[in-house]
């Protein structure tokens, strides 16, 4: 191997940034796959423009992919990168500020012509005007190097140039001592039918790697040893939407049902539909409907027919589904509604992250129409949460809203696969005996019994009008409505009996409790751990169940002097907690920038809170 100095690092963050056409997402994904195989823990964060192809070279067209990998457990894709790859001026100028002081910047000088600078709205060249002082800049004409590497290849110039991201990848592989094999294998498979492309990319990858080694561009290189104390088990690299897709299918299976997904594409939820449409051999039916309303309505129809109905969407789509969600509430049919949140209001920032649909999920239906809400925290948590949503939906005969967000959806991390034995089934029992059957007969959990069309003797009608608690016929009786309203409410609150009190991570009591939900989990945990290292008695409470809230929370809250709720919205969980537990004070800490919290900014804010007189 190399004669360069090999420095061991514990924890590294790299950001790849380039034009949308530069293939940065692919580069990032390959680096991720290889890093997972090497045995590091990791977390990723892709960040791409809303346009399919924003004008080449512009700031709006910059596409980024960040990966944080480490030889210990990590929770976030990293605060400030150690390395920035900038494939053009726009990528450089929009990203260099995030780099940590002294960080490495690999610049593709092949894309720094006058015209390139102009497209990036730059008056002077940041490579020469002092902008980058304080960083270790490595300049390389990657375009040129790629062309050279492919000099004797029969490809068009355009096709050759498109290989340049593999040159970059090769250089970074060298810098972080990653093996080339996984990517080489992937190329073989990917371009099975176009061997010339497989070969060209492989050539370029190796050229980049060798270039790093030969030219000593980086004055040293690094290794990040694999996680030594990683729990034994089988791992898989997973993205959030993928985790949801297989979790939904698994959840239905555990309920003894076949899933039916009625959906309509919307960023960033579309992947779930896409992934599930591949799973036809798992008894999965997917219907891409004409709109979100039809999506949820087909799912309701499918549940009525005895499948487990599901629908996936993002905020604007959830808004459209609210009337039909109410129908599922009053007919008490199981249904899983997935909302992968994005920046709002309205179309808002469709490719950015936000957690601002929580109160819509809680209250966005006409009438008193509570539903259980589960929120996942990370790509690897998505599977479990999807199974949990299926459990609640089928065990309690209720629609459930499962909240994710754009950050989870597109982020990736290694997922320790569950033992098959640990996946406990919760089979649905359809009623088949006409004796004493009425549609609203309930079990001890208040769930009504479920009779499937096709079952002789159980013919019955349900619908959106209030129904008599006993006969199931339409009823306008005042007392009956009061009773049914209370039953529906009690049933949902009763889900509480089946969920554990969450554990506090960090200090069990003390100065500061940070309550977080959804994807703020990672950054919060990291920030709290750092506070603890500084000697602060801080704890982190993550809420997977938003509604009903688990039991035991007041006891936890009481053990801390201050409670803060960081959220990527204007304080929605805080509002809910404040109304539920008025005896405590919940401080808000909001960020609505379309970007996840950084552990560092959280820590800084927590320190401020701690200093304030209460």
């Amino acid at each position, binding site marked *: 191997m190399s004669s360069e100095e090999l420095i061991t690092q514990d924890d590294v963050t790299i950001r790849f940034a380039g034009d949308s056409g530069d293939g940065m997402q692919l580069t990032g994904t390959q680096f991720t796959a290889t890093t997972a195989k090497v045995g590091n823990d990791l977390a990723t964060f892709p960040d791409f423009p809303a346009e399919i192809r924003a004008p080449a070279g512009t700031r709006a067209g910059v596409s980024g992919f960040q990966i944080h990998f480490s030889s210990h457990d990590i929770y976030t894709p990293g605060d400030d990168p150690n390395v920035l790859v900038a494939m053009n001026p726009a990528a450089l100028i929009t990203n260099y500020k995030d780099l940590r002081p002294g960080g490495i910047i690999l610049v593709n000088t092949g894309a720094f012509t006058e015209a390139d600078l102009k497209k990036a709205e730059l008056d002077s060249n940041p490579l020469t005007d002092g902008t980058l002082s304080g960083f270790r800049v490595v300049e390389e004409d990657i375009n040129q190097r790629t062309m050279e590497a492919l000099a004797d290849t029969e490809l068009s110039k355009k096709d050759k140039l498109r290989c340049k991201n593999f040159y970059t990848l090769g250089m970074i592989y060298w810098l972080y001592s990653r093996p080339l094999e996984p990517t080489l294998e992937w190329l073989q498979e990917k371009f099975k039918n176009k061997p010339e492309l497989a070969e060209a990319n492989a050539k370029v990858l190796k050229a980049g790697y060798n270039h790093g080694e030969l030219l000593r561009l980086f004055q040293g290189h690094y290794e990040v040893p694999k996680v030594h104390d990683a729990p034994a088990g089988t791992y898989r690299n997973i993205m959030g939407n993928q985790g949801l897709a297989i979790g939904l299918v698994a959840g239905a299976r555990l309920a003894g049902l076949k899933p*039916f997904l009625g959906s309509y594409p919307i960023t960033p939820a579309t992947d779930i539909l896409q992934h599930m449409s591949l799973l036809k*051999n798992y008894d999965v039916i997917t219907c891409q409907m004409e709109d979100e309303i039809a999506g949820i309505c087909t799912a309701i*129809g499918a549940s*009525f027919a005895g499948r487990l109905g599901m629908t996936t969407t993002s905020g604007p789509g959830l808004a459209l589904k609210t009337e039909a969600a109410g129908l599922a509430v009053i007919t008490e049919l199981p249904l899983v509604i997935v909302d992968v949140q994005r920046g709002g209001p309205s179309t808002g920032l469709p490719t950015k992250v936000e957690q601002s649909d929580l109160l819509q999920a809680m209250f966005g239906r006409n009438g008193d129409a509570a539903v259980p809400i589960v929120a996942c925290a990370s790509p690897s948590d998505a599977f479990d949460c999807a199974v949990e949503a299926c459990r609640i939906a089928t065990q309690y005969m209720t629609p459930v809203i499962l909240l994710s967000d754009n950050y989870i959806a597109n982020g990736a991390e290694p997922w320790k696969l569950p033992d098959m034995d640990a996946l406990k089934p919760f089979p649905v029992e359809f009623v088949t005996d006409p004796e004493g059957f009425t549609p609203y007969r309930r079990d001890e959990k208040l769930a009504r019994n479920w009779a499937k069309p096709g079952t002789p003797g159980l*013919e019955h009608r349900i619908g959106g009008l209030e129904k008599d608690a006993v006969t199931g016929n*339409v009823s306008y009786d005042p007392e009956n409505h009061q009773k049914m309203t209370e039953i529906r409410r009690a049933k949902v609150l009763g889900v509480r009996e089946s969920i554990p009190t969450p554990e506090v991570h960090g200090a069990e009591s003390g100065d500061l409790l940070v309550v977080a939900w959804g994807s703020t989990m990672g950054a919060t945990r990291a920030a709290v751990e750092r506070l603890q290292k500084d000697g602060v008695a801080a704890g982190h409470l993550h809420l997977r169940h938003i509604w009903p809230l688990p039991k035991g929370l007041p006891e936890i809250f009481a053990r801390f002097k201050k409670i803060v709720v960081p959220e990527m919205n204007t304080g929605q969980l805080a509002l809910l907690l404040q109304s539920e537990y008025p005896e405590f004070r919940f401080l808000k800490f909001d960020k609505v920038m379309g970007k996840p919290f950084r552990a560092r900014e959280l820590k800084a804010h927590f320190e401020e809170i701690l200093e304030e007189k209460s």
Partner: protein
Amino acid sequence: MSVVQQLKAKDFKSDQEVRWCPGCGDYSILSGVQKTMADMGIPRENYVVVSGIGCSSRFPYYMETYGMHGIHGRANAIATGVKVANPDLSVWVITGDGDGLSIGGNHMIHSLRRNVDMKIILFNNEIYGLTKGQYSPTTPEGTKTKTSPYGSLDHPFNPIQLALGAGATFVARTMDVNPKHMKQVLQAAAEHKGAAFVEVWQNCVIFNDGAYKSWTEKAVRDEKTINLVPGEKMIFGKDRDKGLSTDGCRITVCSAEEASVWDPTVDSAGPAFMMTQLDNEPDMPRPMGVLRSVDRPTLDQQVWDQVGAVTGKKGEGTLKDLIYTPDCWVVE
């Protein structure tokens, strides 16, 4: 599975009191559907009746079958879910001109193009009944209703044209006051494999009484409507002495002998569409009966075929396969 018995219309009556206004056209459609279902040789438990909201949409409560009284305009979507989830069920949609063509117009046209195998009975009374008398998308222009006190300005849909334009495989029309004709049409719809769209002219005695009188009253019916029977000559008139001939793209009245033969099964929906033009010609009879009936694979069938094909190719996936994919690795 129960043995298929010969069922009677009354086997399809639920114990709920029927609550339409006395004289409402809905009653005869209810009995028409009950009779048709009884004759299909399908066990009662395999019927599912789905509706939206409206007077007409109260229908499922009166049927001793599985049923869902949905939300306004969404019956077609709910029914699509039922049918695709379980193609063994016989799925019927009951909807109104408001429910199915106003708020529910989109689901209507999409379920027709997708050819989901379900029977869609549209009760067209040219008014919103349940909300007490506002104009609907089929109300003729100029009609004074509660929300158009000075006359409605919206040009109405022709439901048959809309269904044809959406690519429906079966399109028919009948009326509440002719139970025999209704039974024929409903039966043809029930026998069609695919989405069957049936417009029923229905009288709302309270808010739009007599809307169809000039076509449906016994005295004029034979002159003002023509029953299109597949494979038969197009003949009408009290004495069945008149016919329609489709000569050179124009439809003209001729003698019964000269009448052309009606064929709703041709590839092109063009001839059926031409036929609907008669609705705009005061001197011509309005077409009733089966306007279109062609075969095309149904969505539900295709979905299940695809699941079968993929499963056949890839093998049935287990829970373990789902989770433990080839790209995973082991940490010891």
